[in-house]
C-alpha cells in the first residue's frame, strides 16, 4: 500500500480503471462499503487526498441516495464526466446484484433446513443493532444542539411510532429545520 508521493503525476484513471476500482470496493464491502472506498481511492490509487475525500463525502451524505453510489458519481465525473460516473456506479452495482440474488435464491431453496430461518433471524437482530448504533452516533454528534434534537424526536414520533408517510413528513419538517438553521448560521 504505497502513499502517493507529491511529485507523482496527477492521477488520470480511464473508464476501465474506474469500473474495476468500484467493482473491487463493493465486492469487498461486507458490513459497509465506505471504509473500503477510502482505502481504494485515497490510499491505494491516490485519486483523492484525505481532505478531498472528506469534502466529497460530506456532499454525498447530504444529497439523497446511497452515500457510496453518490461517491462513485462524484469521483467518476471528476475524471471522465458523465461516462465516468456511469462506469463507477455500474462497476459498484453489478457484483452485489448477482451475489445478493444468488444468496436469496439459495435461501428459498434451503429454507426448510432447520437452522436456516433461525440463522437469518439472528443476523437480522444484529443488523438492526447496527442501525441503532448509527442512530446513537448521530445523536451523540449533535448532543449540544437541544432544539434540533427536539425536531428529530418529533420527526421520529411521526415517522417511526405513528408511521406517517415519509414524503409528507419530510416536506413538513425540512422547511422548519432549515429556517431554524438559517436564523443561526452566519
Amino acid at each position, binding site marked *: 500500500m504505497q502513499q502517493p508521493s507529491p511529485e507523482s503525476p496527477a492521477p488520470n484513471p480511464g473508464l476501465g480503471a474506474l469500473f474495476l476500482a468500484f467493482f473491487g470496493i463493493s465486492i469487498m464491502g461486507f458490513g459497509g462499503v465506505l471504509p473500503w472506498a477510502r482505502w481504494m481511492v485515497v490510499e491505494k490509487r491516490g485519486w483523492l487526498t484525505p481532505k478531498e475525500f472528506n469534502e466529497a463525502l460530506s*456532499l454525498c451524505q447530504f444529497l439523497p*441516495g446511497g452515500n457510496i453510489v453518490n461517491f462513485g458519481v462524484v469521483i467518476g465525473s471528476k475524471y471522465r464526466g458523465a461516462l465516468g460516473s456511469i462506469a463507477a456506479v455500474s462497476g459498484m452495482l453489478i457484483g*452485489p*446484484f448477482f451475489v445478493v440474488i444468488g444468496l436469496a435464491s439459495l435461501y428459498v431453496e434451503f429454507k426448510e433446513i432447520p437452522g436456516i430461518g433461525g440463522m437469518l*433471524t439472528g443476523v437480522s437482530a444484529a443488523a438492526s443493532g*447496527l442501525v*441503532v448504533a448509527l442512530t446513537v452516533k448521530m445523536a451523540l454528534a449533535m448532543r449540544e444542539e437541544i432544539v434540533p434534537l427536539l425536531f428529530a424526536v418529533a420527526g421520529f414520533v411521526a415517522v417511526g411510532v405513528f408511521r406517517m408517510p415519509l*414524503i409528507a413528513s419530510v416536506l413538513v419538517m425540512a422547511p422548519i429545520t432549515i429556517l431554524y438553521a438559517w436564523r443561526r*448560521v452566519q
Partner: protein
Amino acid sequence: MNSDLGKLIAMFAPLSLISIGGINSTFPEMHRLAVEVHQWMSDEEFVRLYAISQAAPGPNLMVVTLIGWHVAGMLGGFVSMAAIVLPSATMTYFIARAWTRFREAKWRKAVQAGMIPVTLALVASSAYILVATVSRGSVLLILVTIATAILTTLTKVHPLLPLAAAGALGYFGVL
C-alpha cells in the same frame, strides 16, 4: 407482471429522491409500501430479505434489489435497483458540479445544517421499526440487538463479526 414493474418503479424512484442520509432513512416507507400498501410480502419475509442483503457485500440499497426480485424475479430486481439509483445519481451528478461554487453561501450552510435533524429522525425511525419487526417481543433477540449496538458504538470491531456470531447463535437454535 408489467403492472408490478410499474409499481416497483413508482415506489422506488420517488424514494430515491428523498433518501437523505442514505437508503436506510427510507426503510420505514419501504416497509409500509411493500408490506401494508401493496401486500407483496409478510413482515417476516421483509425482514428476511433485509437480513440477506445485510449478509451480502455491497451498498445498503441491495435490499431494494431483493424486494424487486421477490415481486418480479431477476428483471424486477434490476428495474428496482435502477429506480432507486438513477434519480438520486442524476441529481448528484448535476449538483456536485455546482455545489463547490457555493461553499460559503449562507443558504447552503442552512440547508446542510437543517437536514441533519431530519436525517436523524429518519434513521431513528428505521432503527425502531427494524427492532420492533425483528424481535417480535423476544427478549433474547432484543439483547442481541442491544449487544451489537453497544459493541459497534464503543469498539472498532468489524460489523461482520456480530452479524456472524448472531447468525451462528440462531442456526444452533439458541435465539
